């Protein structure tokens, strides 16, 4: 019985818009699952994997950058995120190369580790890692 309505929205468009049974999202304090009848929650998200289940079919999605999940009234779950990818989107070799590049740049980083450049690099590395995790699912 489908009982939650899930929407995943990124600047590139609406990625998921369907009724599901259960969803797990990567909150900043740890992954958490949402079932129908959940209390209203607004949670910040970290780069990582989310999954949602309808019936026995489970689907995974990588989320990247900043984002939040809103569990609102009427069992509506709204996930807003900078980036998203399905396993079909991931070209493992390209992402692995991206990760290596970002990691080596991080290692040789000279400058302010509090600064914007460092944050952007770290985000790139995290995002690549999340997509590799997804490809491994």
């Amino acid at each position: 019985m489908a009982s939650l309505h899930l929407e995943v929205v990124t600047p590139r468009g609406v990625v998921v818009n369907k009724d599901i049974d259960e969803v797990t999202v990567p909150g900043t304090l740890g992954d958490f699952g949402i079932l129908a009848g959940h209390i209203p929650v607004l949670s910040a998200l970290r780069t990582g994997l989310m999954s949602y289940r309808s019936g026995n079919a489970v689907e995974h999605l990588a989320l990247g950058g900043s984002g939040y999940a809103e569990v609102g009234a009427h069992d509506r779950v709204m996930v807003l995120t900078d980036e998203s990818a399905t396993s079909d989107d991931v070209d493992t070799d390209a992402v692995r190369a991206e990760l290596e590049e970002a990691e080596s740049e991080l290692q040789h980083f000279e400058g302010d580790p509090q600064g914007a450049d460092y944050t952007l690099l770290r985000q790139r590395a995290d995002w690549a890692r999340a997509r590799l995790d997804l490809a491994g699912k």
Partner: protein
Amino acid sequence: MPSLKDIRRRITSVKNTQKITRAMKLVAAAKLRRAQANILQARPYAQELHEMIAELALRTEADDHPLLEVREPQRVMIVILTSDRGLCGAFNTNVLRRAQAYLADNKDAHDEIQLSVVGRKGREYLEYRDIEIKQYFAGLDVGNALERSKEISAKVTEGFLGEDLDKVYLLYNEFKSAMSQKITIEQLLPIVPAEGSKIQAAVDFEYEPTKEQILDQILPMYLQVEIYRASLESTASEYGARMTAMENATSSANDMIDSLTLEYNKARQTAITKELLEIVSGAEALKG
């Protein structure tokens, strides 16, 4: 009087130019459609963020957040969106002139006005006029607008939070139609939360981890999507302007081909008439 051969060569050259302008027009039209499609796709995201921020602003003393803090605007930055390539009419000139006008009008109001330029054309224009550029980003295109806006927003946020900047504006061409763009100047930082009209749920949320940390996450997203939207508007305007410019160039080339063909025919006729005259007068002379 140019020879027949010269005119023929010019006609060929204009025809070749016309082929190029026509192709550029088609390419610009295709890219314009893509930029417009991207604007539409970004809309639900921006809409949701708007509502969420309006709601949070009602529920928190949101003024506390550093990105919302209004300070005396002593150091101001203007981010100018231009293109990497030319041949797009007055697209770049208009926005850069506006920037110069802003500098001239406001130089007494602020201690310092810094310029951040996106796009090679903007950099060339300002460097030529010896205007200092604080930050430079390579140009925008449909494909890289999202990455670029991420960089820009990270940079200006850094400056604003470090109190190197008190106010940040964004100056760009807003897309009206393929024929017309509107120069728009918008305040990026401090973020002005949209007017909240409605609170959706009567019950407040459970916040994970805290309201403040969620604002930390959401406000940069908002800034980024604002820049993204403007970038797409600017890209759409660029292609619209280029399309119009190339359309005009193609029809000018047509006019030129017509007038050159006329000239060519006249020259040909003159040559024939002259030859006939020579033959006739030669024959007359022989009759004696």
